[in-house]
C-alpha cells in the first residue's frame, strides 16, 4: 500500500476537480480562442508586415496621413459627446427608478430594457425616418411654426450623435440604477435629519455613493461608441467617418490588410487601455454587470 499512500487522496480529488473544470470550460474557450484570439493575433502580426517583410509603414500613416488622425479625432469626439449626453439623460432616469415605488421602477426599467433588446439596425433605421428632411421631427417643428426650412438633422455628425446616444442610453441607465439601488434610504434620511437640505444631502451623500455606477456606465458607453459601425454608416451620410468605417473601407474597397490591421490594433489598444484604467478602480466584472 506504499504507492497509494504516497498520493494524498485530497490532492487526487483536487486534481480531478481541476480536470473537470477545464473540460467544462474547454468548448466555450475553444470557440472564443479560434474565432477571436487567433485572428486578433493574426491582425497584430499583419500590421507589421508588407511584401513578406517587417515594416512600420502601416503605423507611420497615423502621423503622415491626415485621414487617419482626423478619423480617430472625430471618433473620440463623437464618443465623448455621446457619453456626456447619455450620462446627463440617464442620471435622472436611474435616480427616479431607484427611489420610486417598486411598481413604478419596474415600469421605468421596462421602458429602458425594451429598446436595449431591439436591433441596433432597426433603431438606426427609425432615426433615419424620424430625422430625414421631411421626417417626423421636421414636420412637427414646422407644424408648430418653429422653423421655416427643414433642419438638416441627418447625413451628418448630429444625426449620428442623436441616434448613438439613443442606442447607448440603456448601457448608462442600468449600471447607474444598480449602484443607486444599493444606496440605503436611511442614509439619505439621516443626512436630512441632521439638518442637511435635500440638495446638500444629494451632493454630499447620494452623488458620491453613485460614482461607481457613473464610472461603469461611462466606460461602457465610451468604449461601445468608439467601435460603433452601423449607426454612423447609415446616418452619417458619408460625412461622418468613424474608425470602424475606416477599417471596413480598407478591406472592402482597397483590400489593404496592413492598413486595416494597424487601425484595428490601435482601436483595440484604446479599448483595452480604457478598461484597464477603469478596472484599477472597480473590478472588470462589475463593469460588465456580471455581479
Amino acid at each position, binding site marked *: 500500500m506504499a504507492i497509494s499512500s504516497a498520493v494524498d487522496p485530497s490532492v487526487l480529488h483536487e486534481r480531478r476537480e481541476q480536470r473537470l473544470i477545464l473540460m467544462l470550460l474547454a468548448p466555450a474557450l475553444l470557440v472564443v480562442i479560434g474565432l477571436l*484570439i487567433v485572428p*486578433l493575433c493574426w491582425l497584430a502580426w499583419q500590421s507589421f508586415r508588407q511584401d513578406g517583410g517587417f515594416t512600420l509603414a502601416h503605423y507611420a500613416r497615423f502621423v503622415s496621413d491626415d485621414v487617419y488622425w482626423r478619423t480617430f479625432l472625430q471618433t473620440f469626439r463623437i464618443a465623448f459627446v455621446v457619453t456626456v449626453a447619455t450620462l446627463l439623460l440617464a442620471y435622472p432616469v436611474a435616480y427616479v427608478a431607484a427611489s420610486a415605488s417598486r411598481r413604478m421602477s419596474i415600469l421605468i426599467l421596462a421602458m429602458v430594457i425594451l429598446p436595449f*433588446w431591439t436591433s441596433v439596425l432597426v433603431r438606426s433605421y427609425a*432615426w*433615419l425616418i424620424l430625422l430625414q428632411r421631411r421626417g417626423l421631427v421636421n414636420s412637427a417643428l414646422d407644424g408648430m411654426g418653429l422653423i421655416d426650412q427643414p433642419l438638416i438633422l441627418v447625413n451628418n455628425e448630429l444625426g449620428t450623435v442623436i441616434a448613438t446616444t439613443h442606442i447607448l442610453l440603456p448601457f448608462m441607465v442600468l449600471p447607474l440604477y444598480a449602484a443607486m439601488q444599493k444606496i440605503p434610504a436611511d442614509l439619505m434620511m439621516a443626512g436630512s435629519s441632521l439638518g442637511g437640505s435635500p440638495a446638500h444631502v444629494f451632493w454630499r451623500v447620494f452623488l458620491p455613493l453613485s460614482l461607481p455606477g457613473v464610472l461603469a456606465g461611462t466606460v461602457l458607453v465610451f468604449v461601445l461608441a468608439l467601435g460603433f459601425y452601423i449607426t454612423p454608416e447609415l446616418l452619417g451620410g458619408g460625412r461622418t467617418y468613424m474608425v470602424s468605417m475606416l477599417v471596413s473601407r480598407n478591406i472592402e474597397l482597397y483590400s489593404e490588410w496592413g492598413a486595416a490591421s494597424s487601425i484595428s490594433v490601435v482601436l483595440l489598444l484604446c479599448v483595452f487601455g480604457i478598461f484597464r484604467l477603469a478596472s484599477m478602480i472597480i473590478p472588470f466584472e462589475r463593469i460588465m454587470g*456580471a455581479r
Partner: protein
Amino acid sequence: MKPSKLILNGTVGLILLWLIIPVVIVMPMSFSSARFLSFPPPSWSTRWYEAYLASAAWMDATKVSLTLAVLSAVIATVLGTAAAYALNLSGSKLVRNLQVLLFLPVVVPIIITAVGVFVVYANVGLLATMTGLVLANVMLGLPYVVTSVLVGLRKFDPAQEMVSRSLGMNRLRTFFIVVLPQIRPSVISGLLFAFISALDETVVALFISGGENQTLTKRMFTALRDEIDPTIAAISTLLTATSFLVVMLVALSARNDSARVVADDDA
C-alpha cells in the same frame, strides 16, 4: 407633490418617451399605404407586409436568420452553461482570468471581430456557410449565457449539491436533477438573449454571410444604404415585436422563479 419633484418626474417622463418613440414609431409607419414614409400615414394598408411575404429573397433571408438564431442560441446555451458552472466551481485566479476571455466578444469592437472571423473563415472555407454563421453567433452569444447563468448559480445553495452527491448521486445526474431545475430561469434568459443577439447581429454577417446564406439583417442593411424601402419598416416591426416577446418571456420566467421561491418558503 413638490414643484422640484414635479420637474424631475416630468423630465424623466420626457426622456423615457424619447427612448421609446423611435422603437415603436416604425410600427404605424409599416402599415402606411404610401411609398414615402410620412407620419401619420395617408391611409392604412398591409401592402409592405404582402411585399415582404411575396418576396422569395426576403423569405430566404428570414429562414437563414431564424435557423441560425435557433441553432446558435441552443449551442451557446449548452457551452455557456457548462462554462459558467465550471467558473462558479473554481476559486483559482487562473480560472478568473479565463472568465475575462469569455467576455471578450462583447468588449472587442464588433467590426474587428467581423474582420477577424472573416480572415479565419477565408482560410478554412467557412465563408457564406450556415456552419460559419452559427459558430460566429455562438461566440457572440456566449457572454450573455455565461453572465445570466453565473447570476443564477450564485443564488443557488451549493450545500444541496453536496447533499445529493453524498447520497450517492454522481455529478452529472446531480447537475440535471438538482442544479439545473433551480437555475432554469437564468438558463432560459441566457438562451433567449443569445437568440435575440443572433437574430439581430448585422456587422459580422455583412462580412461572412452571402450567397444562399445571406441573413435578414445583411439584406436590410444593404437595401438601406440605397434607399428607404418601406418593406424594411414591415420587417423592422416584426423584429421589434420578436424582441418585445423575448423580453416578456424573460420577465415571465424570472417572475415564475421568484413566485416559486415564495411558495417554497411558505411550505
